[in-house]
C-alpha cells in the first residue's frame, strides 16, 4: 500500500500542476521547488495547458509490474508547449500513426490499481493525439 505517496502526487497527476519560477518565469514539471534554469526558489503552482508534442516514443510489450492489464502501450517523452519534457503513456492512439512531432493533449485516465482489485485506483495524466476541432 502506497496511499500517502499517491495522495501527495495527486494534484500533479490529475491536473498537470507544476510550478513557475518567479525569477525567470521558467515553467517546471514536476514540481521541485527549485528552478532548474536559474537555481532560484520556485514554489508558485502553475497549471499546464496540457498541449504538447511527441519528442520521442517507444511501444512497450513487456511492461512493469502493475501495468500488465494495459499492455502493449506506448510511452512517450512529451514536450509541453510551456517547455518541460515529461514521460507519459499515450492513449487512444488506435490506428493513428505516432511520429516525433505529433501534437498531443493531456487527458486524465486510470493509470492502474494499487495492488489487486481491492486497492485504490490511481488516476493521472496520459496524452492522446489532439482531437480534431471544427
Amino acid at each position, binding site marked *: 500500500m502506497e496511499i500517502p505517496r499517491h495522495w501527495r502526487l495527486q*494534484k500533479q497527476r490529475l*491536473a498537470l500542476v507544476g510550478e513557475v519560477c518567479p525569477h525567470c518565469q521558467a515553467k517546471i514539471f514536476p514540481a521541485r521547488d527549485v528552478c532548474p534554469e536559474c537555481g532560484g526558489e520556485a514554489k508558485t503552482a502553475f497549471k499546464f495547458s496540457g498541449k504538447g508534442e511527441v519528442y520521442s516514443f517507444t511501444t512497450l510489450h513487456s511492461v512493469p509490474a502493475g501495468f500488465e*492489464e494495459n499492455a502493449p502501450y506506448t510511452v512517450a517523452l512529451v514536450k509541453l508547449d510551456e517547455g518541460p519534457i515529461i514521460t507519459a503513456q499515450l492513449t487512444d492512439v*488506435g490506428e493513428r500513426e505516432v511520429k516525433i512531432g505529433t501534437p498531443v493533449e493531456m*487527458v486524465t485516465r*486510470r493509470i492502474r490499481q494499487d495492488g489487486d482489485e481491492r486497492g485504490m*485506483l490511481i*488516476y493521472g495524466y496520459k496524452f492522446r493525439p489532439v482531437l480534431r*476541432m471544427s
Partner: protein
Amino acid sequence: MNDRENLLLKPARAVGIVGYGVYIPQYRLPASEILRIWAGDEGGAPVKEKAVPGLDEDTITISIEAARNALARAGIDAQKLRAVWVGSESHPYVVKPSSTVVAEAIGASEHIQAADLEFACKAGTEAVVAAMALVGSKMGDYALAIGADTAQGKPGDALEFTAAAGGAAFVIGPAENALATIAASYSYVTDTPDFWRRQHQVYPEHGQRFTGEPAYFKHVTAAAQTMLSQLGTTAADYAFAVFHQPNTKFPQRVARELGFSKEQIETGLLSPVIGNTYAGASLVGLTAVLDIAKPGDRILVVSYGSGAGSDAFDMRVTDLIEERRNKAPLTQQYIERRIEIDYATYARYRGKIVMK
C-alpha cells in the same frame, strides 16, 4: 397532491446552462458482433452499435473530460463552482466518491458540495435539478452537474446490445450568463421494479417486457405531459425534444405519442450510433442539440431512470450559444472519432475475461 399549480420546480433566481461538455469513448462494438457470437448471426438489434470505454476509462475519466469541456464553454474558472455532483450507476468505487476526484482534476475549490448520485439512468438529470436549486436559491453562482456511465450488460442478454459508455457535464449558473435558460423542471417518480442491480453483482437484472409500458412509457409520458400542461405549451412550441434513449424505438414511439415529429427528435437521438449511455443518455442527446440550436429555440428534455422516474426540463437557447459552442469539441466529433472493435477486444476491454 391536488395543488396542481405547484408541480413545477421553478428557481427563485432564473438559471440556465452556462457551459456544456460531452465525452464519448472512441471504441464501437457493432450489434452484428453480438449477433455473431450469441445468435448465430440471426435476428435484429435495438441499435446499430455502441460506444465502449477503453482499458483506462471509467465513469470518473469520462466525467473529467466532459467537465473540462463544459468549463471551456462556460469560460469560468473552476474555482467559482460551488458544487460538483456526478450521477452514475457505474461509479468506479462502491464506497469513495467519484465527485471528489473530478473536482480535484478540474481544479475546483475545496470549499464545495460534492457527492455521487444514483438513480439508474436518471442520476445525471437529478444532478442538474440539484444544481438548479443551489444556483436558483442564490446559495452559489455556479454548480457542475454530470451524468456519466460505463454500463455493463450480461453477455448474450438483450441489454448487451445497448449498455454503452459516455457522459455529459453542465455548468449551471445565473440565466443572464446562460447559453440556454431553464424555465422549470418537473419530476415524476414511483416505486417500479423494472431494472436493478444488487450489491456485489456485476450485471443488472431486468423485468423483460415490464421495462416498457409500466416503466419507460408511463414515466416519460407523465413527466412530459405534466410539464407541457403546467406551462401551457404544446409539442409545436419546441424546436427540439430529447427523450431518454435505452434503444432506438422507445424514444421514437414516446415522441410520436406526445405529438413530436421525427425532425424534432432526430438531432438528440444518438442511441442508434452510441448505444444507451445510461445517466448520460438524455444529457448527451441534449449536447448534440445545443451544438446546432439557434438562439430562441425551445428544447424539451425528459430523462428516465429505472426504479423509476423521469425528470423533464423546459429550456430556451440564448444568443450566447453562438460564441460558446466551438470552445470545446462538438458531440458529432466524438461520434465520428470511431474505432470499430470485435467481440474479443470488447470482452477484454470490459473485463469479461477471467484472469485469475
